[in-house]
């Protein structure tokens, strides 16, 4: 049992510096529960992302939930642990990529003979399929941008307090 616990918390050294004031030490329960819960939060974000056509949700909500999962990781295991997994350069590129994906769908639909963001032309045979594809891609763009924007803002706030 204690081996299992050690395994669960091994990559979080007990003296991991948490620069944020919500300092968490001796928090084995937080770490174990966090490790168990965070994957499901991220999975739920993906569900919200790709199920937005059929139920409530969409790119914005999915992005926020995904970022919440990452930020929870930072709160439990420390900011540096998250920075190692999701470096700032990835965040910055992700922010730009999401918006470019959205705009890119618009440009492609123009190149294929429609108006900007007219998804119907994306599929030459079936306009409804084109709409589906377009909505899927732009929602993905929104989700990627929002997720990384939230992480970037969190980094900006939380990263300052250790100086």
């Amino acid at each position: 049992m204690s081996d299992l616990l050690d395994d669960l918390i091994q990559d979080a050294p007990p003296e991991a510096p948490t620069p944020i004031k919500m300092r968490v030490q001796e928090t084995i329960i937080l770490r174990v529960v966090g490790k168990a819960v965070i994957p499901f939060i991220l999975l739920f974000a993906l569900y919200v992302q790709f199920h937005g056509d059929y139920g409530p949700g969409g790119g914005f909500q999915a992005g926020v939930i995904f970022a919440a999962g990452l930020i929870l990781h930072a709160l439990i295991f420390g900011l540096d642990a998250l920075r190692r997994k999701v470096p700032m350069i990835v965040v910055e590129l992700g922010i730009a990529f999401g918006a470019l994906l959205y705009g890119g769908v618009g440009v492609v639909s123009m190149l294929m003979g429609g108006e900007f963001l007219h998804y119907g032309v994306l599929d030459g045979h079936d306009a409804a399929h084109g709409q589906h594809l377009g909505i899927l891609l732009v929602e993905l763009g929104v989700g990627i941008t929002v997720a990384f924007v939230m992480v970037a803002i969190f980094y900006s706030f939380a990263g300052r307090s250790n100086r």
Partner: protein
Amino acid sequence: MGEQAMGPAIEAILFLLMIVLAVQIARIRSLFAAAMLFGIFSLLAAGMQTMMDAVDVAFTEAAVGAGISTVLFLGALGLTTSTETRPLHHRVTGLLVVTTTGLLLAYGTLDMPAYGDPDAPIHRHVAPHYLVDSSDEVGIPNVVTSVLASYRGYDTFGETTVVLTAAVGAILLLGGVLARDDERDDDNDREESDA
């Protein structure tokens, strides 16, 4: 209690709790407690929006208001003190301004159509078209997503750009670049100590 009466009863309880929380947030001096109460307030607002059948809005409120905002408040608290200082100005003036604004806003709502009124202008313009034709034109079951991503694709693109701009501002002002320089310094330190 029948289902008809349940809705208004739950809404009344939610409203009551929100008012209590709002007053408490304004009165409380501990910023940490205020941040937590803000989160609860957002959660109640999300419950209220669910009662009004605006599940997409409620979802956003719960994720942004109760989730991310609380974390950002706490992050900001890490940079400042955790107790609010006593205000310099007279609090009576503030109360007067807030009360007047509130009364004017309440007066403004008198002109608005009743809640759920099917003849309200918002239900008579493009909404019927979206509800009736979106399954043929766009073909996805969630009309909210149809409107946001397809009919109003320009607006959503604009909103995405706004979110992107917010991050650019935060990174430039609060030091994404500086933070990266720090990392580089750390790396250099580590290399030096290794050597």
